[in-house]
């Protein structure tokens, strides 16, 4: 049972990791590519980490919690990265399937927001 759970978690994790990267390749523009890695991957790595937690906790060397920490880190940082990347892409005017709101372009182009 444990082994099945572990195997399932591992396969799911790896699969999501893979799909995340697949999105990176398959999606048509930068903004759509952004979604795959930032989300699918967090889940993928998350389930791998849970698998690892279970795995090491059942190895007879005491519990293993520290994987939670990696997950925590990823959950805090991944959205920030995504936001910054998106912001940078907007700033650079990266080619996009959907038109960004005009105020973005206006503010970024003339440095309107400069304090």
């Amino acid at each position, binding site marked *: 049972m444990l082994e099945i759970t572990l195997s399932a978690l591992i396969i799911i994790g790896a699969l999501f990791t893979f799909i995340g990267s697949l999105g990176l390749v398959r999606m048509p523009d930068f903004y759509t590519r952004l979604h795959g890695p930032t989300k699918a991957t967090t889940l993928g790595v998350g389930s791998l980490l849970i698998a690892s937690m279970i795995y090491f906790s059942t190895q007879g060397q005491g519990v293993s919690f520290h994987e939670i920490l990696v997950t925590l880190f990823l959950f*805090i940082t991944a959205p*920030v990265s995504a*936001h910054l990347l998106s*912001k940078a892409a907007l700033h*650079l005017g990266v080619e996009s399937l959907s038109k960004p709101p005009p105020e973005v372009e206006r503010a970024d182009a*003339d*440095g309107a*927001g400069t304090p």
Partner: protein
Amino acid sequence: MNLLLVVLVPLVGAGLTGWISRFGRMKSAWMTGGLTLLSLACLAPSALAPFAGEVVVRRWPWIPEVGLDLAFRLDGLGLLFAIMILGIGLLVVLYARYYLPERDGLGRFYAYLLLFMGSMLGIVLSENLIQLLIFWEMTSLSSFLLISYAYRKQESRTGARMALTVTGLGGLAMLGGFLLLGEMAGSYELSVILTQGDAIRADPLYTPMLVLILLGAFTKSAQFPFHFWLPHAMAAPTPVSAYLHSATLVKAGVFLLARLFPVLSGTPEWTWLVIGTGLATLLIGAGIAFFKHDLKGLLAYSTISHLGLITLLFGLGTPLAAVAAVFHILNHATFKASLFMAAGIIDHECGTRDMRRINGLWKFMPYTATLAMVAAASMAGVPLFNGFLSKEMFFAETADFSSGFEYGWILPSLVGLAGVLAVAYSLRFIHDVFFNGDPIDLPKTPQEPPFWMKAPVAVLVAICLLVGVLPALTVAPLLKIVVAAVLQAPPPAFDLAIWHGFGLPVVMSLIALFGGVLVYTTRRPLFKLAERVEGQLLAKALHDWILAGLLHGSALATRWLDSGSLQRLVLTLVLSVLALGLVGFLDDGSPLTGPRAILPIDGVSLFMTAMLILVATATLVLHRRRLTALIVVGAMGLLVALIFVKFSAPDLALTQLSVEIVTIVLLLLALYFLPQHSPDESSWARRLRDGGVAILAGAGAGALTWSILTRPFDSISDYFLANSLPGGGGSNVVNVILVDFRGYDTLGEISVLALAGLGIHALLKDLRLPGLERDAEGRPWNWDLHPSIMAALTRLLLPLALLVSVFIFLRGHNQPGGGFIAGLITAVALIMQYLTNGVAWTHSRLSGNMYPLIGAGLLIATLAGLGSLVFGYPFLTSAYTHVHWPIVGDFELASAMIFDLGVYLVVVGATLLILIHLGLMHQASHPGPNQGEESL
């Protein structure tokens, strides 16, 4: 002791004289005269010894291992030269005091003169050949100083450098020759060498040795084809010419021939080299002398000619020829010194030395004229003067030598021709200067010089006369001991009578006299002819050409080699290393592959390797787009870290990861100030070449890796694995190696890091680089300095990161981690604050002053190492203990942790120092309302 003093008095006195001259012009003259006399006085106690057939030798050890002692020797030859040097020296000192212009301080002149005098005495009194060489070179140097005395004149500088170059060449050759000679004789001591003539002449290296030594002698004595420096040395003040270029310096060469005569002479090589050179010099010197319009030029070439004569005599190799040579050395010194002095007086009085303008001086300075005429007659070889005696002997010896050869008439004929020319130029000296009508357009009206200026000339002329008339009474005893010293054998019987009866020598003398008069009378068409062939004389032209070519060539070669191109430097290094590595590996055909069992390849590794190679090659393709290249390198760093993970190196992976990110931040900081793209500037040929070199280098590195990885292996590491826990108190062996087994390496390593920080801090001072207003595509930068979503969350991360950092630090001794990685984590966490919240915000919360932190870290690490000294153990000896506290439980205290703390602090300090200051450079280059940079 006194021999040493003879040399030392002038040498030491030189400095004294230079110094005393600041108290008055006359003081230095008196001083020099006094020192010369003192030196003479020092010589006196030993002066009689040679007459008693003794050789005085005194030694003081200097570098005994290599047979280099201070050793002095006084025999007849040395005595003759010492007397000449000191005697004529005294007269020159007197003469110069009046000759040199009033405004001249004289101190420098006399100092150089004494330096020369001491060096010259050193040559003639040396027992050790290497010591002789030392003094030999010192005469070159002091004569360089004397010739360049009037250094503002171009000709002085040229003359001096030419003399230095030529005599320098000779000196170096002679060093080679002496070394060989010393090797053959097993000693540099003349007493030893002079007894081993036969063995030395039989040595297989005799010829090269002879050539090298003769090069030294010939350059110094201005023998053809090295003669050209001497006329140019006439740029020296006339007293110098009188002293160096007639009596002393140029005689050093012939002195050496005399000195080594018993060892070197008598072989065919010696005979033909020395005779040939002497004869050529004799003829060429005499020929040119006649055509020189410059008074001193005439004398200079005449000197060259006479030196050739003496050389030729030594070349003949017979004892009697040696007698003649030695005798002529003495005679030439007297008449030529006096002639130079006379020429100096004429120059001094007329303001020119051009014989085409100087005429009829008999009317203006009859006393001087008389003295000069006597000396010139001696030079011409007129009977009753000393020159006649030795020249007669010369004619006799050449005739005698030639008689055995089939074409034996050639030598006497040529020698006779030289005699004719000698008479001709002597006659010219007399007639063209003192008679021949009236002076033409002289700058000054000539008159008799002061008495004390004429007196030295008179003394020398008197000697000419005295020796010429009464040779047996005056010079014969001296000549005997000199010849004995030269031959290292009892002197042959010789007769110094004026009249030897009618024979070939007399005929030759007569031919010379009449022929000379004849040549002189037909001088005008000859001068015309000479003017036509004039131009650069061969040897001098050759010298100039060689020197110019050398300068030009070296400039070309150096410019080509030292092109200031880094690419060239790197390429040279890489190619050298490739060559060395290849030679090293292939020299004896060691197998590339060893017998060690290899690990099987798994799919993931294969795939990742392919990825790494892909990424690495991509850097090459993308490198000109710099930001892209940077991102690619970031990926590569990650892959490298994964390799470390794969092959059981968690510590390395951690380090690689953190260093990687810091490096990327660093490169980004730098990239802001650099162009965003590298220009496409390499030609295809260049890329192909570089690619080829790179592939070779890569193949080499790969082959080396393979050859090592496949070889069996036995290392010292078992010791670390066995002792890490019991001896070092840690189960992370890598960390124990770092802080304990090889903690000293780590101390060096953090010093490097600290140095990088300090070096960069120092480098940044005054560094101004304008930041860019717009990005590479010309867009303005984004308005949002510190995106608030990022800023808010990064603040949350700081405590978390610090916690991780403490964690990594504390467990490092037993698990992957340690001070270095912890330090980097801390630094990165703090850098993040700068990145996301800005400098102003962060600085109001964290002092940017990092170097005290670096200092403290280094100090803690060092003190941690020093602690063990208190207990008598070596630096960096660690100690650890397990402590048990209630509740807390068991934990370990290790001194290595303190060391690691030092590491931690240095890493934090240095990393922050580097990054922050780079980041601050923009502000620094835009002085504004921000915080003062120097406060950091």
